[in-house]
């Protein structure tokens, strides 16, 4: 397992994660142009895929599908709440110079309150926009694949690899 993690299975070259383009616009890996709505849409789409459903072919008036419909609704509400809290946390603390101070934020604490349900969402968010999620992930999973990481981006990669191995994330190529 350790050997596989060391190969950076996400395939991301973090050594080239920042730069300026010809129009003097700053570019960085992870700063995707996804807005909150499209992030949510991604989560919803994944919830359908995870349940092997095609929304166009599913009759939710059929009582046999009510339970599945409820589960999808729960996932939607969870993802919606998560992304709302993430946006607030990043807006309120993303500029801090002390990471520990960011952990005092109410939105961050509410994300931890989501417990293990938050893990796949955090990993997806970590991959989209790398940030200081490591402490939360350790708390929520009881594991620490990045305990020997030498850099911030190595820790990101270790956790993404862990997420892929534990089926929280799909393999993704950039």
């Amino acid at each position, binding site marked *: 397992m350790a050997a596989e993690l060391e190969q950076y299975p996400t395939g991301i070259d973090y050594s080239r994660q920042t730069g300026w383009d010809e129009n003097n616009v700053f570019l960085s890996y992870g700063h995707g142009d996804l807005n909150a709505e499209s992030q949510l849409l991604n989560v919803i789409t994944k919830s359908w895929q995870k349940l092997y459903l095609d929304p166009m072919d599913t009759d939710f008036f059929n009582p046999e599908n009510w339970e599945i419909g409820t589960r999808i609704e729960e996932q939607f509400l969870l993802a919606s709440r998560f992304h709302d809290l993430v946006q607030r946390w990043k807006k309120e603390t993303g500029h801090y*110079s002390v*990471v520990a*101070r960011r952990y005092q934020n109410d939105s961050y604490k509410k994300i931890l309150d989501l417990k293990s349900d938050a893990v796949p969402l955090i990993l997806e968010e970590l991959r989209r926009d790398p*940030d200081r999620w490591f402490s939360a992930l350790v708390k929520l999973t009881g594991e620490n694949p990045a*305990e020997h990481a030498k850099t*911030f981006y190595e820790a990101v990669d270790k956790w993404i690899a862990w997420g892929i191995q534990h089926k929280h994330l799909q393999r993704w190529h950039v």
Partner: protein
Amino acid sequence: MARLSHHLESLYPELKQQDYEVTSPKDKVYNCVAWAVERDTKRWWEPSGEPFDHWPDEVAYDHAFENYVKVFERRGYSKCDDSSLEAGYEKVAIYKHQDGWFTHVAHQLENGKWTSKLGPDEDIEHLTPNSLESADNGRVEVILKKKRNA
């Protein structure tokens, strides 16, 4: 000239009133302490518990404000009265929030301007330490100085 995002400018109302210059792209890898201490752009200096973050061995591994002051005192800085430019000296201004947290440190350049790394965001040059006083950063609590190249 590159400007900070509207969101960041809104966080530093004093800065918005003065001239400032963005001098680097955003970078999540290093923070203001790393930048002010030794222009370290490879590490985030904080006793965070993360294996990749750096904190000097000779300073207690704790977020107490005094420990951030000690980081500089152990490197030859001593407390002084004001942030004015003194020939032959370099100064740092250390900021403290009213809740007691260390929040920021800015470093004086030879031309009298100040350089700051803004959390995981850009480096900037600004005119005075007061430029970065704000509701989030609090106020400049301590000014330290040492002889240049000492």
